[in-house]
């Protein structure tokens, strides 16, 4: 699943088309290759770790309501 950003007005038009049964969903068959995904993960591991470190610091510094 992926998202693309639209303005609210566009979304409301989509809603109307859904209600009218006129909306066409963007769906494609795409077999998922687990091995290829697992092989790709190390390529972004450093960036992911840095992001996680930044989030953990912010988490600790943000007051709990």
């Amino acid at each position, binding site marked *: 699943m992926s*998202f693309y*950003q639209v303005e609210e007005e566009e*979304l409301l038009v989509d809603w109307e088309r859904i209600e009218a049964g006129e909306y066409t969903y963007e769906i494609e068959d795409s077999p*998922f290759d687990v091995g290829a995904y697992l092989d790709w993960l190390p390529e972004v591991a450093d960036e992911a770790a840095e992001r996680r470190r930044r989030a953990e610091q912010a988490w600790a510094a943000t007051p709990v309501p």
Partner: protein
Amino acid sequence: MSSPIAPVADQAPAAEGKPTIVYRHAGERAMLIEYGEMDLDLTLNFFVLAVDRALGERDIDGVIETAPGFRSILVSYDPAEIAATDLLEELRTVHRELPAEHDIEIPSRRIRLPVALDESTTRRAVKRYIDGIRPDAPNCEGGNNIDYIVRYNGLSDRDELWASVIGTEQWNGFVGFFPGLPFMFPMDPRYIVPYRSTTRREPGRPRERSGSAGPASRSTRWSPRAGTSSSGGRFGSSTSSTATRASATARSCCAPGTG
């Protein structure tokens, strides 16, 4: 009087590229199979979905249905048709015949959906919460809880949050709590936006519109229909729906394994 049985029917260590496995009796009519450690490891979910598919293809007499979760699968059966010991043997065979995690291919579909971020209906829902339930909620400063999510994730601004929501494909790991509620996990670990329990607007459950999306643990979840929120965290977004309606009116649209 029935004799007691051990809740754990069997277990096995990780081997041959497959995760650890624990078979648990779940009452007299179901068996719960758990894989790996208690961790949000997508690889375990891939394996669960492969098991679910294999069980469906095997069409075991006496099995009523399977319910895959994130790292476990519940197999309901009719004990008048298949004994627990025979079911266990069938399940062991399925596990034995599955390929290693790395070699699994999952039939999947890609769905692309529009999303409006920080849109008016979600802002109104937050306002109702502030006005009617908790005026001093610090995680709703400025009439939204988007900025709170930005802050506790250490993001520079809202744009970085939106880039995280949009920048990765989301894997629909399971559908739960009620029909059509998908739990989607970022496939790119650089874009995980964790949920913080304090993100939610407590007490009370704010009413939200159909199609709202928000963080839930490390996943994104959608509300397929309008109603009270199961967790108050929000991206202030609405997938309009499309998404939502997809899950509400065409369940297969959001079947687990949808990437």
